[in-house]
């Protein structure tokens, strides 16, 4: 478990979001709870989060729309969908759209943290791969320059 992972909890059920945040914090995460998709986007624009736990069914901007907006931000942040199970098709669709995984409510905190860990690992992998790609480019570029120069 990565102590201090930053988690953004998005759920219109204020108490649920607050409780989850409290439980995650108690387990060493740094969580922020918001109650709408719009708030979530604002938070993501302003701060750096490792994992977003996103409820599917919310008034206004729903989970799927929010997910699409998150994807537009081009972050490494991974998204976990929460569903009341009735919208399991939407959850599957969300996974197709790039969500890391989904969970059905009510879920146990251990179940949630296990998924968060998985999401964090994926995010971490992506970041590492990105850095490697960048390094690769930096390494490859002078060699190309040298080759041109020798010609």
């Amino acid at each position, binding site marked *: 478990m990565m102590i201090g992972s930053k988690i953004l909890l998005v759920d219109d059920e204020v108490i649920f979001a607050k409780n989850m945040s*409290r439980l995650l914090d108690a387990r060493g995460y740094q969580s922020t709870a918001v109650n709408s998709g719009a708030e979530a986007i604002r938070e993501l624009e302003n701060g750096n989060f490792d994992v977003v736990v996103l409820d599917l069914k919310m008034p206004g901007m729903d989970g799927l729309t929010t997910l699409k907006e998150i994807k537009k931000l081009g972050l490494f942040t991974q998204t976990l969908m929460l569903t009341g199970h*009735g919208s*399991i098709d939407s959850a599957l669709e969300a996974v197709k759209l790039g969500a890391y995984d989904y969970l059905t409510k*009510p879920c146990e905190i251990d179940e949630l943290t296990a998924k968060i860990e998985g999401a964090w690992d994926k995010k971490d992998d992506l970041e590492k791969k990105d850095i490697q790609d960048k390094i690769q480019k930096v390494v490859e570029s002078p060699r190309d320059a040298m080759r041109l120069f020798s010609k």
Partner: protein
Amino acid sequence: MQDLPSDHLQNGDTPSPDEDRQARYRRLFYRFVLLTLVCSVVPLLLVGWGMNIKYNRLGEEQVMTEFRKEVQHHRKVIELFLEEQSDKLALMAATHSRQNFSRPGFLRSTFDLFNKEHWTLTDLGVIDDQGDHLAYVGPYDLLDKNYKDAHWFKMVMEKGLYISDMFMGFRREPHFIIAVRGNDTDGPWTLRATVDTEAFRSLVENVMIGRTGEVFLVNREGIYQTTPRYSGRIMEPAAIDVGEVHPGIRVRQEAADAGFNGERSVRQIVSTAWLETPQWMLVVRQDKDEAFGAENQANFSVLIFLHVTAATILVVTILVTRYMLNLVKRKDAEADALNSQLMQTSKMASIGELSAGVAHEINNPLAIISTEREIVLDAYRRVGDMDAEFGVQLDDSLNQIDVQIKRCKRITHNLLRFSRRTQSVIDTVDINAFIGEVVDLMAREAKSSGISFLEELSPEVPPILSDLSQLQQVFLNLITNAIDAHENKQYGSISIRTNYLEPDGIVEIVVSDTGSGIPEEKLAKIFDPFFTTKPMGRGTGLGLSICYGIIQRLGGEISVKSVVNQGTDFTIRLPLRSPDAQPDSVHAYDQQVEKAA
């Protein structure tokens, strides 16, 4: 309602929809048949009968006219005969004297001359004005007879020509005479001839009157002047009403008298005509049936044809109406089945929507309760020095909350499973092999309840395209229910039959148990969510509703039949291809089927 038997109304019963429908079918049947009869058979019969009556009359008139002509002609023949005889005698009397006739051989040669062509006269005599014979040729010994007082003698002396009625005379047998008066210097004399009775009768009867007809003559007193074929004998009084002398021919129909043609005939045609001299009535009569035989035959044929046609129309109408009604009945039954299916589907859809909504709404508070429990649990773990008893109580309570949350979660998940529309995972399923696997899975549990499995798997059943895991859920559910239905029985059996209904492309699977059965009033609700016949706490009432939802999604049907204390049959009908089947799986399936073939 008005068609219902009165006891229904008296008992205050309302008719069942089925009785009502049967009554409606009956009314429809009678209405169709009546309408067709009124529109076709009745007009046909009316026109047929009308035309028959019309042609009957025309035919009768024609027959009567022919009859009249025949009689007219025949009267003429008889009159001509009498005239001819009278004229011959008158000529002889005018051209010869009594001395000529008194000469030996002259009368004989005259007699022979008269009878030369046809035998018409029996005898010939010459009589003086005192009534004594001067000469006589004939078979009787009459020369010494005196006719001075005879009626005919007086009449011929008075009128010059006289034709008598039939009378017996001195010869004591019926005959009639034609007498003419001659005149010479010695005064008046008479030439008298007796017409041969049989020859005259032959003449009179020489007319085409068929098998039952007769012709005869009667005088004004109603005495037969010839012997008729059936009615009596010559010189006997005739039964016929003579009436007044009338000109021309009269034809009438009347009841036959007992003497005519035995008693066979009911009605006869009677034609009468009066001869001028003598005043005899010519009667020609015939059995009406024979007279109108040809017409009657034709009419009878027409009527037979008419009624056969009407009967054919009636029979065809009844058959066609029955056929149409059967079609209507079948369509009604199909519509009923569709309606009931539609109602069930729509009910299930509504319940599904409701269930999904309820489940989803309950999941949120459940999630909060769950998090609250975790928070309390976290806090409890952090607090070290806690009263041991309180600690145990809190632990128990939190565990119980967890158990109940999970219970609620199971319920809401089942509800959602009933209502959700997820993509099925379609694959080729060998139903018989699949049933075998399911039975294997349940055999141990069944055995411990004293229940054996019977499998009747038809080898005709082809593989189908369906969702194996969902089907597994359905059959596990049905078999669990079937085992539970034997709760109060020591032993029992569950039979699973498969069958392929080839024309419809349907695979039928019947799961029958010998359990306690389901009361009829509960059967209609058995697929409704939360409806259960199990004791409180034993079942959620969602199993069969989930089965129903799954089978519907797979494009099939599930139905139930049950008899209390005898058992329950669940019938599942699945199409060869589930509606969710993707083209690639269909292709794979087709290949497999081809391979198997």
